[in-house]
Every structure is written in structure tokens, then in C-alpha cells.
């Protein structure tokens, strides 16, 4: 089991690398100059060029990529006399030291006095100075946002991620209750009106846009139920739960449809097996037969689809987040794409892919728990 887990974890690394490579290539290929978008329609072209240079976007593509990963030194450019020359390495180290320990203004001023030609502002405010020679993904640093002044990518994504995590968690619970419940019922009452109705509803659920369902719920459910229409109230746990009820139902209902259809077919398969007939013949309660004997053995495809759904809910909740105005990860990434905030796009997609593979890995590992017949071998 342990070696299998290690095996799988090592297998994840090339996947993640490939993802960063892809995102990086796509970022470079999308038309739209990051400096131009950042500085606005009235920006001076020289300013745009200087900005791109400072942020490292003028470097050759491959260099940018290596720097991002942390395999190449992120050369720090302060604006010196030649306008674009690199700062002396020794100064760089000292400045970095000032930054890291959060030096006071006086210390910066004293430092600037020793190095004529540079201003205090240069040492304090140039964004790239934040990154060291080798400071990239490898060193756990995702860089600084191109758009949000003074914000690190990890901060931008982190805040949003926990909102989305709660949303996804709530939705998957809704999805499991509705989906597995309806699936079992359909299977047990197969070919009755219950079965047909719930499967028709499942088809509607699969094909209903979450956006539309969300708007309907805001228009017609929020008022009568006394729930907030939109927004994320994190002042109290109660407020947070209230603000997540409608989004979780909207998102959960849609994923429950797939789960219901899959549960039904898996259960039907199992229910026709001999041992189920034996169990019934022994006179066991129908509840015990269905839940203990049948459901457990039908669980592998269900767990797989639940796991996958959870992955998708984490990364694909952008429409729900927009409709309900939740400050989540999907919206953050869409916003960064429109604003060409390359650092946040890359960082965000990197985090998403890590989550996605992790969830998949956990799903695979959980098979053994749900079905004792599955044992992960050593080879």
C-alpha cells in the first residue's frame, strides 16, 4: 500500500510539470500585452515596455519558465543609470535582506545613502526585488500578482481557495444525499413511476445550466426562506452557512444527477447477483440487503464519480461563484485571465491541478476501504 502510494505520488510530478509548461505556453501565446492591460488604455508605450521588462516578461520564453520553476535565477532589475541594467549582486543581497526583515524607513534611507544613484523607493517598492535568485515553484514561491499591487499570488489564491473549498464540500454532501438516495430508490423500485420520475429529473439536472438554476433560486427561494441572495458572510459560522446554502444546493443538485444515474446502474448490476438473492432468501431485512450487501459492493463506481465530481466542483464552480457573488477560486482565475495577471493564472492553475490529482489519488486509495476485495499490490 505504501509503495503503491509513493509510486502514485511520484507519478504526479511530471503531470504537474506538464501543466505548468502548458499554462506557461498558453499565457505566452494569448494575444494581449500584460503591461498594456495593467497600465491601462492611456499608458505611455515606454512605460509599458519598462513594466514588462521589470516583471520579467521581456525575457526569452524558456528563461521565464525556468525562473518561474526556480531553476534559473530571477534576475532583479532595479532601474539604474543604463535604465535596464541588472543591479550588482552584492547590493541585491543586502536589499533582499532589508526586505525580508522588514527594515524601517530610516534603515532604507541609510542604505540608499551608501549607494548613490539609487533612491529609497527603488529599494523599497520595485516588485521583483521580492523574489530571490532562485525563487520559484521549487522553492514554494508562486511570485507576486501582476495586477494587485503588493499581493503575493499565494495570498490572492489562498483566500479564494478556502471559500471554494467550503462551497465544494457543501455541494458534494448535497450531491451525495440526493444522488445516492435517488439512485438507490430507482434501482430498488426499478421500472416503477418512482424510477422513471427520478431518472427524468436526473436528465433535467444533467442538462440544466447551474447559472440558470442559481438565478431561479435567488429569485424565488431566497426571499421565502429568508436566506441571503448573494455574497459571502464570514463574520460568523452561522452567517457563512446561511450564505452557502443556496449555492451548495444549486451546485449539488446538478452534480447529483450524474451520481444518481451511476448509482442506479451500479445498484441494478449488484442487485441481480446471486448473493443478493441469497441474502434475501435468508430473510434479511430489505434495508440490510440493500445498504450492507448491495450498496457496499456497488460503491466503487459511485466513489469514483463522487471523487471526480468533487474535483470538478473545486475547480469548476466559477459560474456558481459569479451568480452568488462568492469570492472564490474560479472567479479569481477568470478575473486574472481577463486582466492578464499571468502570475495568478499560472499559480491558480498549478494549485488546481495539484488538487485535482490529489483528489484522484485519494479516490483510488479509498477503493480498498470501500471494497475489501481491492488490495493495492506492490508492483
Amino acid at each position, binding site marked *: 500500500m505504501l509503495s503503491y502510494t509513493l509510486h502514485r505520488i511520484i507519478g504526479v510530478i511530471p503531470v504537474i510539470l506538464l501543466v505548468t509548461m502548458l499554462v506557461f505556453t498558453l499565457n505566452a501565446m494569448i494575444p494581449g500585452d500584460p503591461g498594456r492591460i495593467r497600465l491601462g488604455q492611456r499608458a505611455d508605450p515606454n512605460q*509599458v515596455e519598462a513594466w514588462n521588462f521589470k516583471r520579467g516578461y521581456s525575457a526569452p520564453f524558456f528563461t521565464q519558465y525556468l525562473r518561474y520553476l526556480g531553476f534559473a535565477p530571477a534576475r532583479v532589475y532595479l532601474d539604474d543609470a543604463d535604465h535596464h541594467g541588472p543591479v550588482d549582486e552584492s547590493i541585491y543581497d543586502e536589499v533582499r535582506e532589508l526586505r525580508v526583515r522588514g527594515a524601517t524607513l530610516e534603515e532604507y534611507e541609510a542604505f540608499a545613502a551608501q549607494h548613490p544613484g539609487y533612491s529609497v523607493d527603488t529599494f523599497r517598492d520595485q516588485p521583483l526585488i521580492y523574489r530571490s535568485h532562485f525563487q520559484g515553484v521549487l522553492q514554494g514561491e508562486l511570485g507576486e500578482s501582476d495586477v494587485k499591487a503588493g*499581493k503575493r499570488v499565494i495570498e*490572492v489564491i489562498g483566500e479564494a481557495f478556502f471559500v471554494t473549498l467550503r462551497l465544494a464540500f457543501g455541494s458534494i454532501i448535497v450531491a451525495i444525499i440526493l444522488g445516492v438516495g435517488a439512485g438507490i430508490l430507482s434501482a430498488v423500485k426499478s421500472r416503477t413511476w*418512482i424510477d422513471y420520475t427520478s431518472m427524468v429529473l436526473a436528465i433535467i439536472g444533467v442538462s440544466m445550466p447551474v447559472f440558470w438554476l442559481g438565478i431561479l433560486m435567488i429569485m424565488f427561494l431566497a426571499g421565502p426562506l429568508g436566506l441571503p441572495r448573494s455574497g459571502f458572510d464570514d463574520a460568523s459560522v452561522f452567517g457563512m452557512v446561511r450564505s452557502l446554502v443556496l449555492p451548495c444546493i444549486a451546485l449539488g443538485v446538478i452534480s447529483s444527477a450524474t451520481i444518481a444515474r451511476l448509482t442506479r446502474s451500479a445498484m441494478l448490476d449488484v442487485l441481480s447477483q446471486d448473493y443478493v438473492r441469497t441474502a434475501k432468501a435468508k430473510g434479511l431485512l430489505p434495508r440490510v440487503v440493500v445498504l450492507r450487501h448491495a450498496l457496499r459492493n456497488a460503491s466503487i463506481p459511485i466513489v469514483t464519480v463522487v471523487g471526480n465530481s468533487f474535483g470538478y466542483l473545486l475547480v469548476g464552480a466559477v459560474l456558481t461563484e459569479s*451568480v452568488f457573488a462568492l469570492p472564490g477560486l474560479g472567479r479569481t482565475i477568470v478575473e486574472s485571465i481577463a486582466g492578464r495577471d499571468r502570475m495568478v493564472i499560472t499559480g491558480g492553475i498549478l494549485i488546481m491541478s495539484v488538487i485535482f490529482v490529489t483528489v484522484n489519488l485519494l479516490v483510488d486509495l479509498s477503493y480498498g476501504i470501500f471494497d475489501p476485495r481491492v488490495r493495492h499490490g506492490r508492483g
Partner: protein
Amino acid sequence: MPRSAFDLLAKSLGALLLGTTLLGSLILSGCTGGELGSKNTPDPNGTMRLALLTNPPDLDPILISDTTSSGIASKLFNTLVGYDADLNLIPELAEAMPSVSPDGKTYTFKLRKGVKFHNGREVTAEDFKYSLERLASTSSKRPNVVKPIRGAVQAIENGQKGGDTAIEGLRVVDTYTLEISLEKPYYPFLFLLAMENASVVPKEVVAERGSSFSREPVGTGPYRLIEWKENDRLRLEAFEGYYEGKAKVPVITMRIIPEALTRVEEYKAGNLEMVDVTQGMLPRWRGSAHAEDVRVYPQASLLYYGFNLEKEGSPFAGYGEKARKLRRAMNWAIDREFICERIVDGRYTPANGIVPPGLPGHKASRPQYSRDLVKANALLVEAGYPLGKGLESVDLWFNNQGDNAKIAQAVQQNIKEIGITVELKQLDWAAYIEACDAGEPSFFRMGWVADYPDPENFLYFLFHSSNKGPNGNVTFYDRPEVDALIDQSYLETDAEKRLALLQQAEELILADVPWLFLASTKEGMLVKPYVKNFNPTPMDDDSAGGSQIPWHEVQIVPTGEAQ
């Protein structure tokens, strides 16, 4: 009697499904008609609740270049001069309008005494010097604001070398007197000083907070920023020490709600005091019991379809008789009334030139192009393309926002009727602006929102040959006569004569027909009837409740019973 738990479960689930179906059909029938319900329930604490479409990128004045940020910043900061309701310049933190030297180069400002920053310190001339010099630094996004000041160009260069950005032309005479000398007379200079970018900031706070000043700004404005949750909400609190008295609304919250329908639902539920409108909403609200909520006011902004006049191989390029007649023919083919009234519910006004209505120098008497296919066809014949023969199909480029696609389709249809085939090409803003800067499209949609209410802001940026490409002149218009008139207008100190020069330039440009002149825009909003003293000007847009409105005067006055 149910035989087992399953039967019971089945029955209740069945009932639930049936219920859902019924509720669903009820909802659907409810969608099609019925009175529009909108609650007039002010917040019990008197909070002004606004919605933002996006998270503001920055609130540091030297970084602001978008309407959302400037709408918020205008509540946090003040400038030397501002505008009254008719967009005349008035003193703001200056005691009076500055005295200007006879040569038009030196402005002397007497500052108001006792104006306080949010941290309690009094504002002095030194602070203005510091704040304007910051605009010349490399971290600034708007160095152009201070460029006309003597020595500013040098300061900007110094800044790029890592040096000091002290500007020679800025002189602190005493604590309350600031003298600004320009390189040469520059009439629009006071407009520049009225922009949010030129707001006064406290040096000690900027020094302490560094780049995070943008996220925790401190100014002199009627409100202080007390909370900012990215992508979620901002909270402003009335500043006790505001120089014109504490604002009447104690707290403003701004929630970021990207989805238009959600914003409207929140407004209807009585959770927002105002909201922007989208297509299709106005007729419905006007016909409802809440018609008084609808506010439509003209904007100092315009929309046009430009031709790239330098595009090689394009039949639409150049200043020759043939190309001009072709462009004019297309202008006569467009049904502006349909676009303005039907596509955007009257939120546009057909344009009769470049300078939009509501601005000084707008010429209301000039006739506009109307739809006249006879004229259009006759011009096409004169241009040598009878019924469009001999013209290949042309790509019309536009960015994928708002009503752009619908308008482009209408234009495409109109032009097709005179025999010219147009293909639509849609891009997102980032890619689009890059293509336009580079002069890639030969026929494209573009707009311009005034930075300040003056014709120069349109004519100089959109038509002066020194601004070709990224600076705004995306038609690559290049006429020495027009350049000369605009240049001359800067030196003229007499307001009337100056306006006449600019109008002359506008006429010359119109004769060259560089655009399909389309429309100037209006802003539409819904505002709760209990919001008083909220009177937007053409320089306000719907983001964050506008940027020129005196916000300390806005009031929430519940009238009668809350419904």
C-alpha cells in the same frame, strides 16, 4: 400502511419530486408576467449599499486608470480643484481658483486651512508637492498628469534612473501656498489637477506602507476605507474631520457582484440603494410602479467605428476623394436611431460629431448623418464602387463586451444594404486593444471616455499625429493642419478663442470622415427614491456611485412607510 421504510421513503421522495415539478412550473409561469416587485427598505443603520461589477485593482491615486477605482478613490481623496454640477471647475482643497500669471505659465494656489488627513494631520502645501512628485516616479501609472509642469520631464527621467523625482516647477511658498510653473502655457492643466490621480496623500503613511498603500489608502476625503475583502466587499466610514462637515450617510458598503441579474435581484429585494441597468431592463422598469427609480443621464463618452487610415491595401484608408466618399457613403447607410433606441433602449444618442453633448464646444446645431440609402448609393458611384462592386469583404473588429456584438450586427446589416460585405471579428479586450494599437484592423469599434470635460481630451488623444497607436489615435489620423490647430489651442489663454480653434479642428477632421460616427452614450441606473442629493454629471459613471458627485451631501431619507 407502508410495508417498509423504503416504501415510506419512496412515497415521500415521490411527493417531493412532484412538489418540485409543480414549483418549477409555477416559477416558469411566474417569469413571464406579473408586476415587478421592488422593496424600498433602507438599511436600519442608514448604510448606503452599493454594488461593484469588479474588484477595484488599486486605490493608490498614482495607480488609478479605471472607473471602478476612481469611483471609490473620489470618496477617499481630494484634489486641489474639482467640478460643480455643471462641470465648471471650482476650488476643492484650494481656497479659491488659482491666480495665473499674465504669461499663463504660473499658477498660485492658496490652500484651505484646517483640512485634515484621515490620520488627523493637517494638509500643507508640502503634501501637494510630494503627491504631485510621486506621479513622476516609476511606480506611477499616470506621469502624463504632471508632464506640463516645468522640469517634470527631467524628473520622470531621473525617476527612471532611480533618482529623485523632485519637480523644479513645484514650489512651496509657505505652509498654505503652492506655486506651480509650467514649461509653457497649457490651458487644460487645471483639468489634470482635478483628476483623481492628482489627489493629495500623506507622505508619512505612504512611506510606512509602501506598495500596500494601495490596499490601505489614507486621504482627506469624506470617507475612510475601513475594510477591503478582495473580490467580496469594501466598507467605507464617514470621516469625522472632513473639511466640509461629516458626510450624512455614515457607512457605505460596496459588494462585488459580477452577475448583472444577481445585482438587480439584490436591488429588488431592497438590499442595494442603486444598481446599473442592462439591456432590456429600462422599458420594463419605466412601465412599472417603480418608474421613478430610473435615472438616465448623458455621459462624456462616445462610441465610434474607426477606419485605419494608414492601412496598406485597404480601400478605406487615406485622404483621397475616393476613400473619403466611400467612408461617407457608409456613414449614410447606418440606422443610428435603431441602434440607439432599439438595441440599447435609448441609452445612446446619435452622434453629430466628435465632441459629445454636455461638454463645452459641443455643436448641437450640426446636422448628423441619418440613414439615406440614396445618398449612400450615389456616393458609392462617385467613389467608383457602384452597388459595392469592386469591394472585397471587410472585417469589422470589436471586443466581446456588453452590447457590442448586437450593434456590430446592425452595422453589418446596414452596410450590406449598400452592397458592402462585412465579416464580424470578435476578440476579448486584452487581445483587441493590442491589435488596435498595432493598427491591425482596417475597420473597428472603439470608444473614448473623457478624462476631463473638455474637447481637447477627445481631439488631441484621438486625432493628433503624435498620439498614433497606443496613446489613442487608433485611426492613425495624420493631418498637419489639425495638429497645428490643436497645438495652437494650448497656447491660447482666452477660453472662447481656444474653443474656436478646437471647433475648427473638429470640422477639418469631420471633413475627412475617419469614422463611422455612431453615438454618444448615456448612463442608466436604478436609484431608490429615498436616496436624495444624488445627481450624477456627465463625468460620472455607474461604478461605485460616480466620481464627481459631492458624496458628503448624499442622503438617505426614508419617505413614508417602507413598502
